[in-house]
């Protein structure tokens, strides 16, 4: 069976966009958090809001008054958490592992969300695509390593995570193999940029 170049290009784009969406989406969830907002607050003064909040949480003379806030999911730098805040994969869990230098855990958590979004955006826009795919592969290897070192304590769910990231790796390798057919790149890496990435053909 023979395929023409357009087929290969479309196959690459699908991989490129899927991997970009995956990385950006995962990165954004690390900036996601819950916030309490006062509902229907138009026309209320700061004092009004203060007393409504006070009475909803700390009522003297009886049960708490009616709740006047609602919890909303939102994005913000203040909610950033590179690693989960609860569960088996926290900063504390990794720091406790003898297979992970503890001084690296916090810096890793600090950059992980930004790295996922940055690499995903670079892949989406087409910025040094081969290098970006390669770096993304390294990032997924680092995530895989996390599952590997916690497998003794996590059990089957860690093994599932490893397999799950393995699928990502297969997709990245597939994308690299098809990278020759890439079109529409914002920034092409050229010979002399210090990396012999081949995209200059």
């Amino acid at each position, binding site marked *: 069976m023979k395929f023409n170049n357009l087929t290969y290009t479309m196959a690459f784009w699908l991989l490129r966009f899927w991997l970009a969406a995956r990385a950006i989406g995962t990165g954004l969830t690390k900036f996601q958090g819950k916030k309490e907002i006062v509902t*229907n*607050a*138009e*026309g*209320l003064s700061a*004092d*009004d*809001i203060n*007393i*409504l909040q*006070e*009475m909803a949480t*700390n*009522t*003297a*003379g*009886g*049960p708490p*008054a*009616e709740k*006047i806030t609602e919890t909303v999911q939102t994005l913000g730098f203040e909610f950033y958490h590179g690693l989960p805040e609860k569960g088996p994969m926290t900063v504390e869990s990794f720091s406790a592992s003898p297979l992970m230098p503890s001084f690296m855990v916090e810096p890793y958590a600090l950059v992980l969300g930004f790295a996922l979004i940055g690499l995903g955006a670079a892949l989406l826009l087409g910025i040094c695509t081969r290098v970006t795919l390669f770096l993304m592969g390294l990032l997924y290897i680092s995530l895989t390593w996390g599952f590997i070192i916690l497998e003794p304590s996590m059990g089957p769910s860690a093994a599932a995570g490893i397999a799950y990231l393995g699928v990502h790796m297969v997709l990245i390798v597939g994308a690299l193999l098809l990278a020759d057919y890439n079109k529409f790149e914002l920034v092409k890496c050229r010979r002399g940029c210090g990396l012999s990435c081949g995209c200059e053909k």
Partner: protein
Amino acid sequence: MKTASVAGGGLVLSSGMLKAAGASGKKLNVAMVGVGAEGRVLLQSLLKLPNLNFVAICDIWKSYAQRYAIAMVKKTLKQDAKGYEDYKLLIKNHAKDLDAVFIATPDCWHAPMTVDFLEAGVNVYCEKMMSDTLEGARKMVLAARKSGKLLQIGHQRKSNPRYIYAREKLLRGASICGNIMACNGQWNRAVSFDLQPPKNQKYTMSTEELNKYGYKNMHQFLNWRWYKGFGGGAISDLGAHQIDIFGWMLGARPSRVMASGSRDYYKKPDGSPAHDWDDNVMCIFEFDKTFQGKKAQVFYQVLTTTSAGGGYFESFMGDQGTLKMSENPALIKLFRENNAPKWDTLIEEGVIGGSDASGASVKIADSRESAALVSYNFPDKIPGVVVIGKDKDGNTVEKPIHMYHLENFLGAVRGENKLNCDAEHAYEAEAAVFKAREAIENGPLTFEESDFVVS
């Protein structure tokens, strides 16, 4: 009828609520006096009802309760209610425009406030107890009679569709209990300690402000229910609701009462009782002639030291069955005596719901025992019960229990219906509670040690 010209806020209600609330009714100008714990319960229901214009809010705790209520009215209805510390000033400035006032202050203020509002031509919804004295309650009845205005007392069970169904359809229509010979009621609450003022000092009232209204300090102000001269203790705060229901369901007034109270749990550091009123009360009311022409005995207890025993309910116990009522629908049950006629027809006709035999599996240990009984539920649909939505777990949420009684009052103000608990009838429960309290002081016969020893 005085009607408001101010447009209402964007309150979203289900169609069922609107229909039940009489959405076609004219807009009423209303005010609230007293926005403590009970006042807030009323306010939360009132804010969900259509066609109300909040003209004023009165509470002596300006920085806290009053401010909260004004902010809630503004937030919910986008109306600017004027704040007052002195209810007499509120009457002076607004009585001519007011259709109704809701009073939920400490009991000692009910009578003077109610009388003043009625005399100023304002219909009154007043929380129970009517007053901290029987004389105060009497003045309220007389003021209502003289003014011709409406006075509803907050015995909200009398507007609860389940209680109305129980009284009319089950006890009277189906005679489901047969001959009611006894009743048993209780409100058992776990130990709870006195209320404390807000941690934030800016919300505390000064001693001068408190003294002006007769309170010694914030503690007495917040815990007025336990002090003579302000409230009536557990037998009036909790018991009055249920004692009222016994008389209403039985269609009679009690003939005699005996009672016992105890103040041996809540103590001051010096070991003396912490409160003026009893922690726990047990009493027996005797009714000489119920609606069935029979005698009936009613045992009632209110405990503030133990919650076990099934919470709060009123049971009507007959020779053919027992009806156990509660404001909590989950506690409502019916029990058919094993020698009574079957209730299959009542189930088929939807008068009662299905049976639950799980409680009947208790084995008899002695031949003198009666076999455990199968319990029955109310039907799923009771006329008048309004479901307003579902909670996050998917359970149906009904209209708040106080809302039915508030709607009944507002309907009466609009001329659409009669009051379910006017002052004349509420006074009967008032008299019963005051007499029970008197029985605690004077009633019991005292045993002597010699009574038990053969000498």
